[in-house]
């Protein structure tokens, strides 16, 4: 189950500048845990004790926010891609 995860600019300090990383997992939660194992520190920017942080959006295949699917339990299959997008752009 290799999933592509697209990383926004503010989080690339954790991924050695990579804008896309690959991770394994059957759910979004598993994939993010695998990303965290390889790039420590990134998960705390995305999740808090209640789940996905309020200003963070995670899309499955550029279509649907996982909030409208099954959240962190959303199933993913090999070849799927996740996009992490901040709710805003920053700067004005």
């Amino acid at each position, binding site marked *: 189950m290799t999933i592509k995860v697209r990383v926004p600019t503010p989080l690339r300090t954790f991924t050695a500048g990579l804008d896309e990383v690959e991770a394994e997992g059957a759910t979004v939660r598993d994939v993010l845990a695998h990303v965290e194992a390889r790039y420590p520190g990134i998960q705390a920017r995305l999740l808090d004790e209640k789940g996905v*942080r309020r200003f963070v959006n995670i899309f499955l295949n550029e279509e649907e926010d996982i909030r409208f699917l099954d959240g962190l339990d959303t199933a993913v299959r090999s070849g799927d891609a996740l996009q992490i997008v901040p709710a805003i752009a*920053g700067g004005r």
Partner: protein
Amino acid sequence: MLSPVPARRLSDITEAVGATPLVRLRQIEKDCPGVELWLKLEYQNPGGSVKDRPALQMMRDAIADGRLTTDKVLIDSTSGNTGVAYSLFGAALGVRVQLVMPSNVSQARKDITRAYGTDLVFSDPMEGSDGAIRLVREMVAGAPERYFYPDQYGNPSNPKAHYLGTGREILEQVGERITHFVAGLGTTGTMMGTTRRLKEHIRPIHCVAVEPADAMHGLEGLKHLASSLVPAIYDPAVPDETLPVTTEDGWDMADRVAREEGLLIGHSAGANVFGALTVARRLERGGCVVTIACDRGDRYFAPMRWEKNHVW
């Protein structure tokens, strides 16, 4: 009911910029007994945000020295408020406006700017505001004679607007009482210009810059400078202190100010008030902290694509 201030008569809309009210936050103040908290309502500007000041100053200064003519297209990167201001004054002054913004800015911002006749170009949401800046630079480099690029991040007219306006007005409004000024860092124009004016005051005023606590944040309009293209107008020696504020603290304070003070402020303004209260809590009696309401919260109400079924 009688208003305490005379109603103004304006010869055109540009005269409506500035002279914004300063309101005391009497409920929030209960968390910092003996210290005054004041909020300058920049959303009372005609475009609904603090950005009317620098946008108009940049356009006026450029018209005055010939950089901006009606033959040129004003182009800049903005995720919203500056774009609203350019669009408003562009319409009023007869200047065509084109804006580059990340595609994930709120629908309301896109609709407002288009309503004034502005053309929009979208940049990659994954690249944030820096991606929009890079795209504008490419477009301008490809046709420099076609565009006037104010570059709010590098244009000295941006902080100048706050030096001449915001800072002077604050001193007129609170006079001798002000001890602290708190403002968020975005282009850094508000902090740079206002602080420079306040530092000329006879008594020292401690000026605190609020910035997002983390590179990944949801405080629209603010920049985490350590991870961003640092604006050319930013001088790190100007603020006395930089205070990190988390997205959650900024958002929650915006909600609280609406419910307790009747002021529906945006997220960056929420972060400013949170920062102001943090500073005020450290002070003895007699402190007076002034901060900025950059815009109103209803500018963030329109659902974005991914929010369509979701209420936070």
